[in-house]
């Protein structure tokens, strides 16, 4: 199971997605809220980690029970957060990089405002396909 969210510069969510839901996960409906809590708490760790490196991919920034939180910071301070239960560094790096490319293309659209939620169905389909490809 993994939960992905794009966080804007004002700590506002721009896009959310969930990948690889197993049947046992479906029962745990309340976990949806928990996911948001865990990722929100990890934002502070990102703020700290992002000044120690020039890399955009910050690897795992936080842990919660069996879950890991990986983060990626773009040039304009948009954060990609991924909550996942299995360590898979290379797959996550590829997933973040390719999602970043999609995000830049979205941003270049003059009708898209910075920090606005991403509602494009094409973006959604493409991110979900990337999730299937790299995060299993």
């Amino acid at each position, binding site marked *: 199971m993994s939960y992905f969210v794009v966080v804007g510069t004002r700590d506002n969510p721009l896009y959310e997605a969930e990948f690889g839901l197993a049947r046992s996960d479906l029962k745990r409906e309340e976990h949806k809220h928990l996911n948001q809590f865990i990722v929100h708490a990890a934002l502070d760790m990102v703020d700290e980690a992002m000044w120690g490196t*020039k*890399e955009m991919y910050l690897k795992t920034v936080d842990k919660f029970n069996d879950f890991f939180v990986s983060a990626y910071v773009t*040039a304009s301070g948009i954060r990609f957060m991924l909550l996942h239960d299995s360590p898979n560094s290379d797959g996550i790096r590829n997933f973040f990089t390719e999602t970043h490319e999609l*995000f830049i*293309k979205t941003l270049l659209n003059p009708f898209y405002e910075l920090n606005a939620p991403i509602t494009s169905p094409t973006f959604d389909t*493409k991110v979900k396909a990337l999730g299937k490809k790299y995060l299993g």
Partner: protein
Amino acid sequence: MAGRLSMVNTASFENSRYALAKKIPILDRTLSKGHAEVGISAFAFLFSEMLQYSQKRVNGIQDLERKLADFGYRVGIRALELITWRDKGGKRETRVLNVLYFVHSVMWKSLFGKQADSLEKSTDNEDEYMISDNDPVVTRYISVPREYSSLNCGAFIAGIVEAVLDGSQFPARVSAHSNPMEGYPGRTTLVIKFDKSVMEREKDAEPKR
């Protein structure tokens, strides 16, 4: 041709015409490194239209400069993401001098086809830096009437720079000032004043002795 400048664009002109004809969705187009160039006359025309549009909707010079800076901000935030992706292999900047150098060279080159002419640190204030351009394209074909003498169209570039610094998490106030020199009547200096939080963080980042 001497008077050409390159602009931020998602694809070269030919590419985008192809994309339009075929109706390729933007998310399927390439962000390739090909640097698109735009004719300076086309740019000058568009910029002059922008000025006229803004001028009809503002009261006073400060208002006009703010509006130009707002236009610039929209360009800058996109330019930052795109140029970092294209020219820097996805590395962020974490230090004040590096981010200023990025603006002065990499970004200027990508937007205007050349580096800015100088990058200086203010001698009076720790948190002030100046970037100057001898002949910025935004002032090259604009002659400012006397009653607008304090207006500098470099406010547009100031907006771009402010967005780049803001986006890189170095909040700053950027203002454009005419600073003519012999032979360069349109010379413009951008004064960059960083936020207090930036200077504090910079102090913490100094290697400890």
